[in-house]
């Protein structure tokens, strides 16, 4: 049997578009992700969703639904604008944390996978270049059941959010870190007055910057909330104007 170009062209069209049509009818043809991660196939965790299958296109909302992690924890852990908690896609982290990438420290989808796995007590392996924001580490310390060794290794991979760009480099000793936490504030300046409270700034960051808990409580007129809470969230909860509270707390830093 001989085949000419015209016949071959027709056959190619029939195979390609016929195949696509057939699989579309059966529902198998998918060009986008279903946003549902794969489950562990076997072992102790069989049937549970596997954080390793979280993709860059998953939103924090998708992850919160699949893994039953509060959206707020995910959002605060990665320093996301509270108004975008649900719609924030993991792959967007790469642009937020781009300055760290130049130093070989990556906060991206792999960090979310690692955070989710530790939060839920699920197994996962960590790549050498993957880091977690310090807020994520704090949330894990508070909410996940971690061993001492796990806490120690988490502290080694903790990095600060880019708005302050103070990295907790494991090679820096604790003493140096304490000194630097009040001195090295941003890459452009060594002046402590350049620390600026923003919407995503947490109470923990105030403490890290050397503000005493008693002074914060004096301004709040009550006990300080969870250190992981952002100042803006606290203000919203209490019905206080954020700008006023920010100004008072900024005074403590300055």
């Amino acid at each position, binding site marked *: 049997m*001989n085949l000419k170009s015209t016949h071959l062209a027709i056959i*190619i069209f029939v*195979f*390609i578009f016929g*195949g*696509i049509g057939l699989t579309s009818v059966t529902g*198998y043809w998918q060009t986008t992700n279903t946003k549902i991660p794969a489950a562990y196939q076997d072992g102790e965790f069989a049937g549970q969703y596997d954080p390793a*299958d979280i*993709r860059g296109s998953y939103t924090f909302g998708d992850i919160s639904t699949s893994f039953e992690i509060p959206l707020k924890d995910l959002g605060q852990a990665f320093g996301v604008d509270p108004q975008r908690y649900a719609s924030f896609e993991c792959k967007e982290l790469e642009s937020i944390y781009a300055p760290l990438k130049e130093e070989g420290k990556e906060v991206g989808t792999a960090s979310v996978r690692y955070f989710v796995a530790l939060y839920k007590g699920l197994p996962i392996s960590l790549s050498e270049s993957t880091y977690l924001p310090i807020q994520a580490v704090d949330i894990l310390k508070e909410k996940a059941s971690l061993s001492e060794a796990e806490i120690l290794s988490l502290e080694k991979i903790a990095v600060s959010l880019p708005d302050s760009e103070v990295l907790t480099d494991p090679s820096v000793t604790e003493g140096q870190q304490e000194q630097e936490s009040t001195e090295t504030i941003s890459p452009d300046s060594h002046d402590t007055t350049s620390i600026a409270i923003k919407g995503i700034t947490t109470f923990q960051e105030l403490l890290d910057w050397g503000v005493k808990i008693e002074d914060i409580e004096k301004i709040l007129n009550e006990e300080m909330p969870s250190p992981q809470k952002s100042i803006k969230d606290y203000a919203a909860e209490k019905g206080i104007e954020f700008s006023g509270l920010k100004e008072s707390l900024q005074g403590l830093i300055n």
Partner: protein
Amino acid sequence: MSQTKIQQDSIPILKTTKSRKPKIRFYVQTFFFFLVALITLNKALSEVGLSIPYISNGSLHAICPFGGVASLYKFATVGTFVQKIHESSFVLMVIAFLLAILFGPVICSWVCPFGTFQEWLSRIGRKLFGKRFNHLIPAKVDSILRYLRYVVLFLVLYLTFTSTKLIFQDVDPYYALFQFWSDEVAVSAFIILGVTILMSLVIDRPWCKYACPYGAVLGIFNLFRIFKIRRATSSCTDCKLCDRSCPMNITVSSRKAVLNHQCISCLSCTSENSCPMSDTVEFSTKGGK
């Protein structure tokens, strides 16, 4: 009398002229090139809330059959695909394999937009270098380099299997060409695209010949494809036009059937296209008429 007529009918006829009309393969290639371009454009538009009607807005990865190949290991072991790959890549992979079992790597020669892009560039190269075009690399070096794509294939599969990431994206010139506006394209992919563009001016389909891992996979099917390029030695005049027309530099004139792993089933060498003798170089099944 009737016996004489039968004998005359079976004698191959020397065709004096070849049609100057663009061949049907050109139209098919152009169609798929612009279809893929529209899909990638639509994907970009969909991210800002716009869309082109009746065109898919899947990603470039979603419509690339090689994604299916790269996902095979993960699919077999975990039941999912590597990042950015979806069911559509798997469907296209199966379609491409079925076509390859029957006809060889027709996806490369009739469908792949990056192959088309290289062919378009080669038209400039032919004008620049004339008969030297596609023959500038010493045969010995060329014959060794032809196996490089299997090394690329092995590396891509190994790194994808171990990382479960689409490693190939960072060196994929096809991705760089169709996503040049995206910040997801690595510098390495742009460099390889640049090198491929320059090489396409002196060689036909340099990426396909030396580096394409998907071409390497589909090339294996040439060993057992059902339809092959077959040459009738009885009517062949040994003019070597079939050799000269082959973009992959295969010596068709010395074989009864082309089993070469580099053949892309473009049909350029056949009696329909280059061979001046009718029914002499055909794309056929064994003993096929």
